[in-house]
């Protein structure tokens, strides 16, 4: 058998780490890869459902042959956007509610405020 050719980085340059602890960067990479694979899986389930619905049965090669029409791709696109919004809600929420750290009220201050009339 012929050896499979692998397209590899020659010189990536120094990897930037954005957090003090590189493990956080690594975890983000893992989460993103997982998010991607979950989305791929969802599309695959969607393909299977559609094939079953139209054909009543399923051959594996039909899955490989299936390509979404523009209409189906648009549906998937909407679904992916909703999925991404749910997934990264904590980040996008921070964007709109972002408060300077020194202005964040901690619990004890909040309690004092509650008692004010």
């Amino acid at each position, binding site marked *: 058998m*012929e050896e*499979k*050719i*692998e*397209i*590899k*980085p*020659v*010189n*990536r*340059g120094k990897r*930037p780490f*954005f*957090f003090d602890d590189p493990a*956080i*960067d690594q975890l*983000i*990479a893992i989460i*993103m*890869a997982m*998010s*991607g*694979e979950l*989305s*791929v899986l969802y*599309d*695959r389930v969607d*393909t299977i459902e559609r094939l079953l619905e139209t054909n009543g049965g399923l051959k594996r090669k039909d*899955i*490989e042959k*299936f*390509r*979404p029409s*523009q209409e189906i*791709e648009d549906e*998937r*696109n909407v679904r*992916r*956007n909703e999925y*991404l*919004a749910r997934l*990264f809600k904590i*980040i*996008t929420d*921070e*964007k*709109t509610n*972002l*408060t*300077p*750290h020194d202005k964040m009220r901690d619990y004890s201050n909040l309690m004092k405020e509650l008692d004010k009339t």
Partner: protein
Amino acid sequence: MTPLQEHKMLAKNNHDEDSRQSFVNDFRVHLSSNVFPGNFPAYYKRVLPQFLKNEKREPKNSNEIRKVMNKDPFYSFWSAMQRNSQEMIWSSVIDTVERQLDDLITKSKIEKPNGSLTLNPNLDIPKYNTAADIHLQPGAYHQQQVDNDVSAGAVYDKGTYIYSMGGLGTGNNAMGQITHGFFKSEFPKKEISKVLDMGCTIGGSVTYWAQKNPNVEFHAIDLGASVLRYGHARAEALGAEVHFSQQNAEKTNFDSESFDLVMSHILLHETSTSALQNIFDESFRLLKPGGIMMHLDLPQAHGVAPLESFLFEWEIYNNNEHFYGQLRKMDLVELCIKAGFNKDNIKPSSAGNFWMEEQTPYSSDDFVFPITLCIK
């Protein structure tokens, strides 16, 4: 994602690769429209007030902003995601190309081409192309692992389309559409018979020009053999006649005063300070009197506010676009004068997606590229 226009050389996705690539595309759209904008409140509400408190003044330039923004958790999270999304582009298309590489190599050999392909295995690849994998494409433009390798071209074709989130158009030729529309309006009467495109990669732009002007002789050069083999076969598949050759744009083997137009599309920012001058010098040498030099590249820093500059420069530090940091600050007019162009014939210009024929997902937002335009 609207798929790329099919052609014989385009590597075919299987079911899951197709979805994976669509995911990366949608993810990058999500990042740029829903996450990236958070950098502004992060700066104005959090980072800037802290800076003002500590320093009693505003940051002077993008470097000062970088130092403080690098510590902001929102900016860090966005950056980590953006960097990963860039890596995911390539990993989502590499499997597809690896699987059918043998087949692509076979298809790239054209019996009776309309155009041509001339390779030079002895060409030295300059350091600025090998020092790092530019925009993180594994192996960059020049890696060759098998005889007659076309993988760098095949990966680039699919990957840059995702990188641009469809903005390059389904023919992967937006920049060619822009320079073509711009040129035809700027020089409506100019007769051209011979044109050179420098740093053509897979010939996205020049192939578009050739399709539009079948009676003009088009030459296209690049350093990478793999991208040229692929580009040649791609142009043939699209029915365009282009003569590809492996040459360094700093010093080519073409005759002096032999071209009516010498152009490039985002080549300059991937070179070096000395290479840039050499490329302008060489363009001048190659042009007939009255000929036109037209180099389109990324925006410069002149007159840009520090925060915008800082955000724009993200790619320099995190996406291996090193020289772009220098290019942003350079005076290109001065280099044109040094190359031999008369001051009155140097016309710094700009052109954007309003020159495109095709509607892309970004047609409503103007992105504008500066063009270094000179008449010899």
